């Protein structure tokens, strides 16, 4: 008799375990508000540093470009942070030391597939444009850097920092 009771008890435990307990718990109804904001996002690859050798060019690309068909992403050079003396870009050697040397460097823009590049002279010149869903640039998209070396330029490694301004604009 005891064994039978034990068996029935275990069977009851099994049934209760398999049944979803939440079904018993949800005796009252309720609601939650679900909201989701879908907004434009993008991710652009910029050069970490610039290797300046003849023929080298940097091509902008994007990882994601989910911005909607009525917007473009525009990349310009942030002239206020990049240029000195009203529009010159300099590369430095031993910056901040008494041996500091600097050379002027031209920045040129062009199409990734082209060998024809033009000088960037303004403080906020366009260097690339991206459209919705495209990870390759639509306008321009490639940069070249040309250091202005003279016979008196000391040998050594010169580095500079370029700042870009990236913004979503209405088409």
């Amino acid at each position: 008799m005891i064994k039978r009771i034990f068996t029935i008890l275990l069977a009851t435990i099994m049934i209760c375990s398999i049944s979803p307990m939440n079904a018993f718990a949800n005796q009252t109804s309720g609601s939650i508000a679900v909201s989701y904001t879908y907004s434009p996002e993008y991710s652009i690859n910029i050069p970490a540093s610039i290797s300046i050798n003849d023929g080298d060019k940097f091509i902008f690309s994007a990882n994601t470009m989910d911005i909607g068909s009525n917007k473009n992403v525009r990349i310009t050079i942030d002239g206020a942070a990049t240029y000195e003396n009203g529009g010159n870009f300099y590369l430095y050697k031993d910056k901040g030391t008494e041996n500091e040397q600097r050379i002027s460097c031209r920045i040129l823009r062009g199409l990734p597939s082209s060998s024809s590049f033009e000088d960037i002279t303004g403080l906020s010149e366009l260097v690339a444009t991206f459209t919705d869903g495209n990870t390759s640039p639509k306008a321009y998209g490639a940069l070249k850097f040309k250091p202005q070396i003279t016979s008196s330029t000391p040998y050594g490694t010169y580095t500079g920092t370029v700042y870009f301004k990236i913004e979503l604009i209405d088409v």
Partner: protein
Amino acid sequence: MSCGIALALFVAAAIGYNSNDVLKSKPDDSVQTLSDVDISSNNSSASGMIAIPGYDHLVMKAGQKVQKVELGNPKQNNCYMRIAIMLPDGTQLYESGLLEPGQVLTSIEISQELKPGIYEGAILSYSCYGMEEIKELNGAKTIFKLEVEP
């Protein structure tokens, strides 16, 4: 015989209990912690490049300095990042420390409480630094719309 049936039922009960537990735990398993979130959906960035995330707008709450955000250094980057937020007039609201690749900020304390409104032309600045040697790399400023809710 009865003992055998009892044992079988006990095992079945145990299995039933555990399977219920598994079903309950499934949704939790799919939740990513913020530190795991890759804020860029693509890891194709080659070394030598820096992925810069950009947004149309960010939302903050008026009248409080602590703000919930989700900003960070994309996982695929090979550099440290310092993120700063500025109002359109250049007033700096926040500057982070150096963020490692994959590190995400979820809560920040800004320098001043904001009034409700939309601030067009706010700036999210990314300053980047090498990981082997802390030297400054190229950087970017992204422009966004700061929406401050009451």
